[in-house]
């Protein structure tokens, strides 16, 4: 398997799906000549031409609204919103149009669109360019929400997202773009809604998303030296959520820590914790711990930003408190 970065894996999935299916096209701000704000769509314009790689005006509403319309009309748009923080601008198109059209129309329409967007702090981009808003979307019936943590997952899940007949919010983490990993060559699709045990362990389950998967894995290494075996579960998709994999793991370990970079209150961690409390109460041998960002906007100063983002040490502490 070739080694490539998370960014290259996404780019590869886009190229492969565009080559495979002529109804797939890409649109977004600066995705063409510029190659995307982070370079994810680099080279697509040359490969597929301006008819299929559309630089849009700074009009998030129109980008998503047009994607919904084009999808309803039978195409498979892959829209990029430059920063997840901008999704409030096009929220109506996401949650009142894309998410609901099929249901409102009695199943007579499909909106096969993918919305790619980078989330996450770590670049000193402050409060409006660093957020992780996945919980918003996971709260909306009709949307699928995907958060890959590795290059392979990014390729496999984006491929499935594009092929899916539902609107899929595909959340990339900007701090993962440079992370390298082996990625299967050629067609590679991971079914949406299938979690992945990134590390097996018997003592404590850590359910982590996106970048936090890597921090959880690092924490697990440290904890293993102390004799605590952590199982790291990456749900990969928040909707549909692979409850079975999570519950199975908790059934094994009896202890659960949920980690995400998003603000803890109202975060997806609460949902996962609640599912485990409801469905797996009897598995629990300790209270569930949630780790997320504090209830504050993301600060600019790098020391503050560092303090804001959940750290490996926080995960270690939480696990220790349960082990």
């Amino acid at each position, binding site marked *: 398997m070739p080694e490539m970065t998370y960014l290259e894996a996404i780019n590869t999935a886009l190229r492969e799906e565009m080559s495979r299916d002529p109804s797939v096209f890409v649109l977004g701000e600066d995705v063409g000549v510029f190659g995307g704000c982070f370079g994810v769509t680099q080279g697509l314009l040359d490969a597929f031409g301006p008819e299929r790689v559309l630089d849009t005006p700074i009009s998030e509403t129109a980008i998503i*609204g*047009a994607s919904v*319309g084009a999808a309803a009309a039978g195409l498979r748009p892959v829209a990029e919103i430059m920063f997840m923080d901008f999704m409030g601008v096009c929220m109506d*198109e996401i949650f009142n149009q894309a998410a609901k059209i099929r249901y*409102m*129309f009695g*199943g007579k329409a499909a909106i096969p669109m993918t919305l790619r967007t980078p989330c996450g702090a770590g670049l000193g981009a402050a409060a409006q360019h660093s957020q992780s808003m996945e919980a918003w979307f996971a709260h909306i019936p009709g949307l699928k929400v995907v958060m890959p943590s590795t290059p392979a997952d990014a390729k496999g899940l984006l491929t499935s997202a594009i092929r899916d007949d*539902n609107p899929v919010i595909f959340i990339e983490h900007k701090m993962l773009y440079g992370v390298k990993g082996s990625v299967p060559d050629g067609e590679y699709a991971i079914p949406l809604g299938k979690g992945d045990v990134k590390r097996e362990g018997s003592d404590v389950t850590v359910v982590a998303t996106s970048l936090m998967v890597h921090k959880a894995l690092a924490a697990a290494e440290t904890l293993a030296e102390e004799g605590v075996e952590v199982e790291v579960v990456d749900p990969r998709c928040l909707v549909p959520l692979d409850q079975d994999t999570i519950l199975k793991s908790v059934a094994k370990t009896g202890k659960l820590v949920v980690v995400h970079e998003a603000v803890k209150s109202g975060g997806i961690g609460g949902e996962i914790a609640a599912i485990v409390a409801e469905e797996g109460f009897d598995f629990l041998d300790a209270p569930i711990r949630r780790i997320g960002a504090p209830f504050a906007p993301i600060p600019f100063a790098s020391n503050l930003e560092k303090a804001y983002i959940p750290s490996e040490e926080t995960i270690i502490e939480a696990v220790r408190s349960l082990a």
Partner: protein
Amino acid sequence: MALSQEKLLELYRKMVTIRVFEENTAELFAKGEIPGFVHLYVGEEATAVGVIAHLKDHDYIASTHRGHGHLIARGGDVKQMYAELFGRKTGYCKGKGGSMHIADLSLGFLGANGIVGAGLPLIAGAAFACKYRGDDGVAVCFFGDGASNRGTFHEALNMASIWKLPAIFVCENNMYAISLSQELHQNIDDVADRAAAYGLPGISVDGNDLFAVYEAAEEAVKRARNGDGPTLIESKTYRWRGHFEGDPVVYRTEEELQAWKKKDPIERAKKRMMETGVLTEEEDKAIWEEVRSEIQEGIEFAKNSPLPEEESLLEDVYCE
């Protein structure tokens, strides 16, 4: 304008159908037989019929919360429409959408929409799809004067303009954004003036004149099919009823309403058709009779239709 007698009668009949459909809906709603919100199209029939007259099967329409007229003009099935209004399983949306979300994808009808101005970017996307496929399809978006103040209007028209999308933006200026009259909600007389901002042709027509609307739409559709890009048509008209059924309508005068009723688009079309010998009084009477019975049939169908099963509650949230 080369309208055959047959085509004229068809358009006239559609206007009558809309009128009778809406009047019956008002009555049924008042009797409590229709739940939720309904927004009626009475008085605006010429716009829908005049524009949609030009559309081919593979064209698209984005409608509004006041959307019954658009679907009837597009040839929608009044039985399924009523069934949807009644929340029945046999409705267009299996009872899941109601008046505000009626859609018929087989007719390229991308749905009524509960969000004012939401259809504008959607139709840009549909127009893009037409262009992308290169099949000479066009996409029409109906929206109100109120929606012309939304950001979607700006973003969609700009995008459609730069990409020269085959779109026709039809502003049904019925003079009110819910309760706010046009002079209170925008500082222009003609919404069509806004087209200039996007480098588009903008035309303002008498929306109660079927023929004027028809002519304006004909030009716009031609431009779109020719790849010349979108057009903004403002159709000045008037809704006879309140914003929604149950609206106490405290924001306008009875005199104003009566003045507009004198400009009834159906009466005006009938007069012109009779003047040109296309329609006789007897034929007109027959049309109304036929339409009334068709509508009655639709209502009966809806009333006799089953409610959706509760098991369907979770169906169609996602494509499998």
